[in-house]
């Protein structure tokens, strides 16, 4: 048994040591695998980042109330009366003064110039009540100050500032006929709210001719996750045609929109993987062909054909794992933390960060191993079947 393992170890070591003889071909195989892995990981990191952004956006302790059937905040609408009525629902937490903790919000779309393309893209601008700020988790003003009610002042999310031109602190920016001053930059720890601009709700209503209408109500729940009392309140009042769900559920539903990206990434990598597989097969067949006399000589000496098989397979796996690591590192260098934006459910830009997690890294290496395994299997079979008489043939 010891002889068997030392045979295999020797053949594997010899194959690896002989790689410089096939340097360019081996590098081409490594490159092909690395490209496939990098592409896959870029897509998966994108999907993961988007999912994480939206998953991190919602909280279980806040309910979001929208008009029935609106599906997104943009399509929802409700009057001041409706807001006043629903804010009295049981299940909504109250502050020290005994007032319900809620924020009636409206949501308008403004144009911004993307830094990356210098093209126009939609940015959500949210009018919030003073309580709206405290209803977001992890929210902090990182620069400047909060807007003052009644003034054309906005605070911009860090994502907006990162992706769009002109949102530096103190800058004046025009939306239609009105000018707004950026008085603060806020962070919400990377959630989708960072893709928004916030301003005083009544000011937004007047500047965008929205009368006294709102789109959503956010309310702190007495019991996190329990929207049942509010739901019953709505059901019992025929004036209220509203949906209620926790913010976490609301955003999780929107986050699924990009699941397709991950699937597309897998399909694209599969097709590209076939190309890399052809490259790996070619490289390994060439490797076997260039080592035929060595393989046959070892067999003549008494080495088993399984050592030739395993040696070739391991060489293929080593090349593909190197390719996988290079591809994953490239994806990590170029894409991890890479900030991008895409259309959210309200046709506005959600800014998110590509996230290359260890789990995705493992996915990339597994893909590389699969290419290496299949690409090495057939050449390894050929290596195992090299006739021993080949040791007696040919010169250098």
């Amino acid at each position, binding site marked *: 048994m*010891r*002889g068997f393992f*030392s*045979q295999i170890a*020797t053949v594997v070591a*010899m194959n690896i*040591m*002989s790689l410089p*003889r096939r340097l360019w071909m081996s590098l081409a195989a490594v490159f092909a695998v690395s490209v496939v892995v990098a592409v896959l990981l870029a897509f998966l990191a994108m999907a993961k980042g988007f999912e994480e952004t939206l998953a991190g956006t919602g909280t279980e302790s806040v309910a979001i109330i929208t008009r029935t059937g609106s599906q997104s905040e943009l399509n929802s609408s409700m009057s001041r009366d409706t807001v006043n009525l629903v804010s009295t629902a049981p299940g909504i937490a109250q502050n020290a003064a005994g007032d319900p903790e809620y924020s009636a919000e409206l949501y308008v779309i403004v144009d911004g110039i993307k830094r990356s393309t210098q093209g126009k893209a939609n940015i959500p601008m949210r009018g919030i009540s003073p309580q709206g700020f405290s209803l977001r988790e992890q929210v902090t003003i990182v620069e400047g100050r909060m807007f003052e009610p009644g003034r054309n002042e906005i605070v911009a999310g860090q994502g907006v500032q990162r992706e769009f031109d002109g949102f530096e602190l103190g800058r004046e920016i025009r939306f239609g006929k009105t000018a707004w001053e950026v008085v603060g930059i806020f962070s919400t720890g990377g959630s989708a709210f960072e893709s928004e601009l916030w301003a005083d709700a009544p000011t937004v209503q007047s500047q965008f001719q929205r009368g006294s209408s709102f789109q959503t109500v956010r309310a702190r729940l007495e019991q996190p996750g329990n929207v049942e009392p509010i739901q019953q309140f709505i059901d019992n009042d025929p004036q209220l045609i509203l949906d209620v769900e926790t913010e976490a559920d609301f955003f999780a539903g929107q986050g699924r929109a990009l699941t397709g990206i991950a699937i597309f990434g897998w399909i694209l990598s599969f097709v590209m993987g076939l190309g890399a597989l052809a490259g790996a097969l070619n490289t390994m067949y060439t490797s076997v062909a260039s080592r035929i*006399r*060595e393989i046959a*000589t*070892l*067999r*003549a*000496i*008494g*080495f*088993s*054909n399984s050592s030739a098989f395993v040696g070739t397979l391991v060489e293929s796996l080593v090349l593909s794992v190197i390719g996988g690591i290079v591809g994953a590192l490239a994806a990590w260098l170029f894409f991890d933390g890479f900030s991008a934006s895409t259309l959210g459910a309200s046709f506005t830009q959600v800014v998110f960060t590509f996230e290359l997690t260890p789990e995705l890294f493992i996915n990339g290496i597994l893909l590389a191993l699969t290419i290496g395994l299949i690409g090495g299997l057939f050449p390894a079979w050929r290596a195992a079947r090299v006739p*021993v*008489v080949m*040791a*007696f043939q*040919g*010169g*250098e």
Partner: protein
Amino acid sequence: MSDDILFDLKGVSKQFVKGKETITIFDGLDMSIARGDFLAIMGPSGSGKTTLLNMLGGVDQPTSGEIHFDGKRVDTLSETQLAAWRANNIGFIFQFYNLMPMLNAHRNVELPLLLTNLGKGHRKKSVAAALELVSLSDRAKHMPKEMSGGQQQRVAIARALVSDPKLLLCDEPTGDLDRQTADEILEMLQLLNREYGKTIVMVTHDAEAAKYARRTLHLDKGEFVEKDLAA
């Protein structure tokens, strides 16, 4: 069968199918090789000398007939059994040395020992002894490309010897060497035969080389013509 007989071939036939044609190389060949013999096999191209060497080395199988080695039948062994049999009994010396280019002399010579259960220390001693026998102790760390053809063939001889096989099979061992170097190699083989009792079978087309053997068999169309050329 006498105890002195190492190899015994009985009624060995070998045929190849080439397209629609069946080519007969041997048809009922009988031969025996005694322990301690140094046999040169000569013959024109296509006479079957390499096929015979391959069958003796368990690299090729006869179509019919029996091959006995050391009293045991070997032509019926499986691929895996034959590999183990070769590892225990046969040392090969090839025309083009067949050293592993990425291993130094020491590591090349060590290869057959990796098939045994010998520990590292034992292997090191055996390799050193084999390299000393071929006067290459000072080249142990050299790579094949850093050595002359004659030195490479001596490393190959050390590799063939290191596991102390009963038989050395040499396929044109001097075919790639100049006369002087060839003579050195042949003297070494002669020494191994005479001083160390190694049984050697050497295929060659070089009559000068054959003079170093105890006897020479001439093969022609699969049949032997024996001539005593022993010195």
